[in-house]
């Protein structure tokens, strides 16, 4: 028997397990998945919990339900990968040998990495919405908020779902308007980036949407520490931003076992070939989804598009053939902008998010970098697609590679 071991049964790991189980012979291949938790969380839904749009239990399902028959799911925490010995060691002492390893343990928020973030104010006046419990605690604080300064903040990039903090700012503006208290809330968006977003065209468009909503932008703000008593963010260049309510995106890092195993970069992401996802250090190790150091967004759409390509490549690879398909960094993300509207961005390694439209038979077209209600409904409908089509590995009529159809090229090369 040949042994494929997948670490992590989140979005990427589950998709890969489903796709490969259908394509690899059961008499020749054993597929095993390890995960430390028995719940699968629909993470895009966390954004909606603080505003009461989703109830906390609407984004959780049992993990086992999405693992196909013929794949063994081992509950357990990973201690380390002994890559030289082709073995994974679990915290409880079990050893799992593999022929091929797929690392899909994602990225996690690390509030412990910013002095002053954890402590008595954590989940009271200092919040985050990147965990289920954080989103639920924030819903409570938002409900009780009587006005003052709300600071939406990013510690450092890269982060999972890089548009999420912008969406949070837009939705906060709409939320306080709806409650008739927008004039009592000052909203500040503090980011280590030089503008609202990374790439110039999207940054300009999203920046002007912050302006329209009277959300102040504090750019090039790299936080050094938080003073929880004075309720102030302090940057490395000694700027201060006071807050009454802080919604931060803590530092994002890959799992600690990746560092312990000597497989990661400075943020515990696995360096891989950006076209094939194969580890740059070991020929039989791949990393997919947020766990990899790909120079594109950390997002479910990237996991999805790269999983399609990875599956085909992997089948060729284990048959001794060259991997001919190349992942192009394709990502697309809906951006909620409030009042039942949203935008869509679609991009890859080489093409930044551009305005235009995104054609899709029957339900499209969606608006690229422009607001409309169809984008909002697209985002909400995606939850059903995630559970019923994406995770089980059923085809979704979206091309793996980015297409220029409908996109408006910039007048001059940037």
């Amino acid at each position: 028997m040949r042994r494929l071991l997948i670490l992590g049964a989140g979005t990427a790991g589950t998709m890969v397990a489903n796709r490969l189980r259908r394509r690899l012979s059961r008499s020749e291949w054993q597929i095993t998945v390890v995960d430390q938790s028995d719940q699968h969380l629909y993470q895009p839904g966390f954004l909606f919990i603080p505003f009461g749009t989703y109830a906390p239990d609407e984004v959780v399902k049992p993990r086992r339900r999405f693992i196909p028959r013929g794949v063994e799911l081992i509950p357990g925490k990973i201690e380390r990968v002994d890559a030289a010995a082709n073995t994974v060691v679990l915290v409880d002492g079990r050893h799992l040998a593999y022929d091929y390893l797929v690392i899909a343990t994602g990225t996690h928020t690390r509030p412990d990495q910013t002095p002053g973030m954890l402590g008595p104010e954590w989940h009271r006046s200092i919040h985050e919405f990147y965990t289920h419990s954080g989103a639920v605690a924030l819903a409570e604080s938002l409900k009780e908020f009587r006005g003052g300064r709300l600071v939406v903040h990013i510690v450092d990039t890269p982060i999972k779902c890089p548009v999420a903090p912008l969406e949070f700012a837009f939705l906060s503006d709409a939320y306080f308007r709806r409650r008739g208290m927008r004039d009592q809330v000052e909203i500040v968006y503090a980011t280590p980036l030089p503008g609202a977003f990374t790439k110039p065209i999207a940054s300009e468009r999203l920046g002007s949407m912050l302006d329209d909503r009277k959300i102040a932008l504090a750019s090039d703000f790299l936080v050094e520490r938080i003073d929880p008593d004075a309720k102030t963010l302090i940057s490395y260049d000694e700027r201060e931003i006071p807050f009454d309510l802080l919604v931060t995106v803590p530092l994002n890092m890959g799992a600690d076992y990746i560092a312990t195993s000597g497989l990661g970069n400075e943020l515990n992401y696995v360096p891989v070939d950006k076209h094939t996802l194969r580890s740059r250090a070991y020929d039989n190790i791949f990393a997919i989804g947020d766990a990899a150091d790909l120079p594109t967004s950390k997002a479910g759409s990237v996991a999805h598009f790269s999983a399609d390509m990875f599956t085909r490549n992997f089948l060729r690879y284990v048959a001794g053939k060259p991997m001919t398909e190349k992942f192009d960094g394709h990502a697309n993300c809906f951006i909620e902008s409030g009042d039942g509207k949203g935008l869509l961005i679609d991009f890859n390694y080489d093409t930044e998010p551009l305005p235009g439209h995104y054609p899709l038979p029957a339900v499209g077209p969606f608006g690229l970098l422009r607001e409309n209600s169809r984008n909002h409904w697209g985002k909400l409908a995606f939850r059903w697609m995630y559970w019923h089509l994406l995770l089980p590995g059923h085809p979704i009529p979206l091309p793996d590679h980015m297409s220029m159809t409908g996109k408006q090229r910039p007048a001059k090369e940037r």
Partner: protein
Amino acid sequence: MATTTIGGRAVHVDPEGFLTEYGEWDDDLARQLAAQIGIELTDAHWKAIHFLREDYRTQGETATIRRVTTLAGIPTKELFTLFPKKPAKKMAYIAGLPKPHGCV
């Protein structure tokens, strides 16, 4: 691709003035580039610059502030003192490397 003359030498640059040819850079050019943004290079600056050069050679990408802090052992606070306001951008400029791009 544009060329410009720095210290009497023609070099290739992008629209923002970042060098585009890894091989056109040397210590002397670094001093000139630093002077253009008002920085006089000390040993502490060189430690960061040489780390960036070497890291780019093996990784093919300009190191982030966090990478410089973690792997070269230079505290972030010190980088802000050495290269005020925008250390990532200024270090890359002086080291003759592409402007660091935050991932989308």
